[in-house]
């Protein structure tokens, strides 16, 4: 008899947690209804690796700054954030072409799997204002598969650009 209220409370709490999870999942939950099977890994984008210079140094900022390249790194399946992952980035900016060494830099994700890099303003090159990001297994000890991203800015006057990684264990 004493067990019954306890069981009911557990059920209510479980229900609330489920509703909460659905709410927080929000749009991404609608976009990926197969979430129960796990978060799918990000695939490399076409042209993502173009003008890549492997092993760019970890820097506080690329060049003079004024523009932010941000994003998150999560684990495929459970979506857990991955801290201390090395993300390399480069772009055609007001301070150089994509191939120029000063256009490249790397940073590490924080405890929440978030990375933020300040860099010069990205400007349109080869027809689109876009950035490049790499998770390169060769230059990171966390043991995930290599992924190259090439996000495009909605407008060339944007002051930031973001791209998210979902990595799969190698």
């Amino acid at each position, binding site marked *: 008899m004493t067990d019954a209220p306890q069981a009911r409370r557990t059920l209510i709490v479980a229900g609330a947690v489920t509703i909460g999870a659905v709410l927080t999942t929000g749009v991404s939950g609608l976009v990926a209804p197969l979430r129960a099977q796990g978060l799918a890994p990000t695939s490399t984008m076409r042209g993502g690796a*173009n003008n890549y210079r492997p092993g760019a140094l970890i820097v506080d900022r690329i060049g003079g700054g004024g523009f932010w390249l941000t994003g998150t790194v999560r684990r495929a399946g459970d979506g857990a954030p991955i801290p201390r992952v090395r993300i390399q980035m480069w772009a055609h*900016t*007001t301070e150089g*072409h994509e191939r120029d060494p000063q256009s490249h830099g790397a940073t590490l994700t924080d405890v929440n799997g978030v990375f933020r890099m300040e860099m010069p303003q990205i400007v349109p090159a*080869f*027809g*689109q204002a876009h950035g490049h990001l790499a998770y390169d297994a060769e230059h990171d000890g966390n043991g995930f598969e290599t992924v190259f991203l090439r996000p495009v800015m909605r407008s060339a006057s944007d002051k930031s650009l973001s791209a998210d990684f979902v990595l799969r264990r190698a």
Partner: protein
Amino acid sequence: MIGARPVRSALIWATLAVALTVPVVFAASSPLLAWRDPIYIAAGFAGVVALALLLIQPLLAGGYLPGLRLRFSRRLHAWVGSGLVAAVVVHVAALWLTSPPDVVDALLLRSPTPFSAWGVVAMWAVFATALLAALRGRLRLKLVVWRLCHIILAVVIVVGSVVHAMMIDGTMGIVSKAALSALVMAAAVKVIFDLRLLADIRRMASRHRHRAMR
């Protein structure tokens, strides 16, 4: 007193000069140039020049430019065609020097940017047209067959180039690019209708039918 004809002639030439120079002036004043090295800048200008040459071509082919005899106009059309080939070669080569992997992706039709494929298709159509024109004497094509091939390729070039240009965030600026593209399309459409190609094809088909009946 100045007659109507010279005034009209001067107006046509002046309009053409403005239509050709305005896009170049816009491109030359683009803020993007400050962040590009000379080779990349040259690549962009070669593209702008190529689009401008596409406006001259139908005007020469149709003999619309006052003061030029049709024969001379057509000869000039061939020369401008060679210039178009050169502009396309410079455009692609200079882009390749700027960023080889992006150009290789474009040429292999696996570029992430959809406008690349339109440009590459137009490029091959330009080369095919030049080859066809160079071999015209040896191929001994009937005039109507030659024109049909040439016009089909010209349509591919015009549509491919205009879509390619319009989708690019480049140095020309959207207004001058849209205006030049509209003029290029209008000139191409006019010459295609004026050449009465469809009537020629119909006539040829009916001749074949008559021959078959005999």
